[in-house]
């Protein structure tokens, strides 16, 4: 995962388009997620107003991020926990390793965290002799398959049951190889049995956070499997791994955003489990970790804060933009070549890895605007993708042929008499090329178009020619 393949997006996409199994899996995304979100939004009359409110909360936080992060830290410390400020992925990895080594940890359970993917935590822990076990079912499956998530909230959405069974047989070699694994309940039971022993044996539990609450020093996670609760309450140490824009001022604010989160993500009113953790176990608590650590990751976010990409920091990782994106529907998450996919990936990945690595992603968009229309935080995703294109253009990173064509076109478009001359000739030539059919099957310099579709021929004269002939102004 450190080795991003975003620069290879075109080839990744080509492979994805030819993968029949993947294409079947993507069919579920574009139907089920879309319908469920629409139904959930329709059931809540104040949904649009809530989106505005959620956006405003996060905007306020981003204006005052330093204040709320410091308030959060002081509350965590007052509760008996610790906050570790980490500027980049390496700092976060080393901090986590140090905490694990302080208790001589051998086994670490993990709740779902995209930040863990972003800093490539599993490979790092393994390289340091610590076994990480993902406890979210989807994450567990892709961990066994050694692949990155293909979706923000449904990391294994690209797989079918047979592929999961195959991964289980390859990994769980102590079980009877002839066992039946063709049905989902059998797969679930096997994963549950396997994970249960790990929950109990783990020395450290690492979760992400959907929210960090400044007024209480709490972290909040939402899951549908309850795995997060077991990850954070059973081991001796709970580490919360979160990026700094997750902070919100109050529990009330978190509750407001929660109302749009699950509805936008899965169409649920609430996720099944919403778990609030506030510090380590207190003297009279019946359970809970002995230590509570928050690893706060920047990794480029404070740079985004001062840039035209600030609005992307409102993202709550619901996945609605992926679920409604025609490009994501066509190629799936892995084609994007790193951790974040879909429209938000097209904005975040260049921010985090550089536009040199990820320049394809903001270009691979039709600007259809469906992502922005469903984003619960009203992030102007197309506008931000356009900002990346502007950076590429001004830094001369876009392909020379495309630049050349664009500048030629702009030269003509800025000169109306020349434009009329060129379009007049073009209309005639294309009309001739279309012949009796009225369309062209191939066209020089337009192979991208005519490889897949015909080019309708023009009517032959331009509007401006005909308009002038009629003596009109």
């Amino acid at each position, binding site marked *: 995962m450190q080795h991003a393949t975003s620069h290879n997006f075109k080839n990744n996409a080509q492979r994805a388009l030819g993968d029949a199994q993947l294409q079947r899996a993507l069919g579920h995304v574009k139907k089920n997620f879309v319908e469920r979100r629409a139904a959930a939004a329709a059931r809540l009359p104040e949904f649009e107003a809530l989106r505005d409110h959620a956006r405003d909360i996060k905007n306020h936080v981003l204006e005052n991020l330093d204040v709320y992060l410091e308030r959060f830290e002081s509350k965590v410390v007052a509760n008996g926990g610790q906050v570790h400020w980490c500027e980049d992925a390496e700092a976060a990895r080393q901090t986590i390793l140090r905490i694990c080594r302080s208790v001589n940890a051998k086994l670490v359970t993990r709740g779902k965290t995209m930040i863990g993917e972003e800093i490539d935590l599993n490979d790092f822990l393994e390289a340091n002799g610590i076994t990480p076990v993902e406890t979210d079912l989807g994450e567990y499956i892709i961990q066994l398959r050694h692949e990155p998530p293909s979706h923000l909230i449904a990391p294994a959405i690209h797989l079918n049951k047979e592929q999961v069974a195959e991964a289980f047989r390859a990994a769980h070699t102590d079980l009877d190889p002839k066992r039946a694994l063709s049905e989902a309940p059998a797969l679930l039971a096997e994963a549950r049995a396997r994970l249960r022993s790990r929950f109990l044996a783990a020395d450290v539990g690492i979760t992400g956070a959907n929210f960090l609450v400044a007024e209480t020093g709490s972290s909040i996670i939402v899951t549908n499997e309850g795995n997060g609760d077991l990850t954070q309450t059973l081991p001796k140490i709970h580490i919360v791994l979160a990026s700094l824009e997750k902070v919100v001022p109050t529990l009330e604010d978190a509750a407001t955003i929660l109302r749009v989160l699950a509805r936008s993500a899965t169409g649920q009113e609430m996720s099944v489990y919403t778990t609030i953790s506030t510090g380590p176990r207190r003297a009279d608590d019946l359970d809970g970790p002995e230590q509570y650590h928050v690893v706060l990751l920047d990794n480029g976010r404070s740079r985004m804060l001062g840039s035209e990409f600030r609005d992307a920091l409102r993202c709550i990782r619901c996945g609605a933009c992926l679920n409604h994106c025609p490009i994501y529907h066509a190629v799936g998450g892995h084609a994007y070549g790193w951790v974040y996919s879909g429209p938000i990936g097209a904005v975040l990945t260049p921010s985090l890895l550089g536009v040199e690595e990820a320049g394809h992603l903001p270009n691979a968009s039709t600007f259809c605007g469906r992502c922005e229309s469903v984003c619960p935080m009203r992030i102007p995703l197309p506008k931000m993708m356009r900002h990346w294109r502007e950076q590429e253009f001004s830094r001369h990173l876009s392909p020379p042929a495309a630049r050349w064509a664009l500048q030629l076109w702009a030269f003509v478009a800025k000169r109306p008499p020349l434009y009329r001359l060129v379009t007049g000739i073009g209309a005639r030539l294309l009309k001739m090329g279309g012949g009796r059919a009225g369309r062209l099957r191939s066209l020089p310099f337009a192979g991208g178009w005519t490889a897949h579709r015909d080019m309708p021929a023009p009517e032959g004269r331009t509007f*401006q020619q005909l308009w002038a002939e009629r003596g009109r102004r």
Partner: protein
Amino acid sequence: MSETPVRVGLFVTCLVDLFRPTVGFAAVKLLEEAGCTVEAPRAQTCCGQPAYNSGDRADTRAIAARVIAAFEPYDYVVAPSGSCAGMIREHYPALFGDDPALQKRAQALAARTYELVSFLTDVRGVSRVAARFDGTITYHDSCSGLRELGVKQQPRKLLAAVEGLRLAELPGAEICCGFGGTFCVKYPAISDKIVSEKTADIAATGADTLLAGDLGCLLNMAGKLQREGRLIAVRHVAEVLAGMTDGAPIGESKTG
């Protein structure tokens, strides 16, 4: 309709100018029937989207400044395209953040700029059209018109007034057709995948004619339908509303 005729500057759009002047004349007819006087300033070329969406802000601004100057004299600017009208209306003002005078002019023009069909219904109060079309059509909602300008019910309302016309709604009508301007030639395989699903949906409606309000999308869908050998005619919605369907559909010829 109103007493003093309103002066409309027709923003023809470069695609209509080059590929399908009939759409421009259909727009003129509809606007005149709605009590407008129509002019098509000769200084117009393109709205600048190819530059804008390729990140070339300097050329975009230069082109936008010309459009603003050319269309300032009119009461309204009307384009037979949600995409180009959306560009002027939603994006021009933001181009001139560092030039307050030009920004003010951009904002003033933006506020008077409309997509053709929504202008007819929402501004001119048109609810009837003198047109007849014998056939079953299906309608694709082009993205910019739909999501930037809220054009959804307006074309359906006027199409319902066309004698003889039946509408078979297109499932997924709000999903992009995969055109996306330069996107379709920069990422042709992905664009093809998207438009293939669109043409399959179009064919499944059983309609004999596909309509939409943006020529870019129409060229894309027509080209794909024809490559697939599907016998579905493709036209701009204005042609049907104006009763100007004597000429060949997009990508066909009368002799062909």
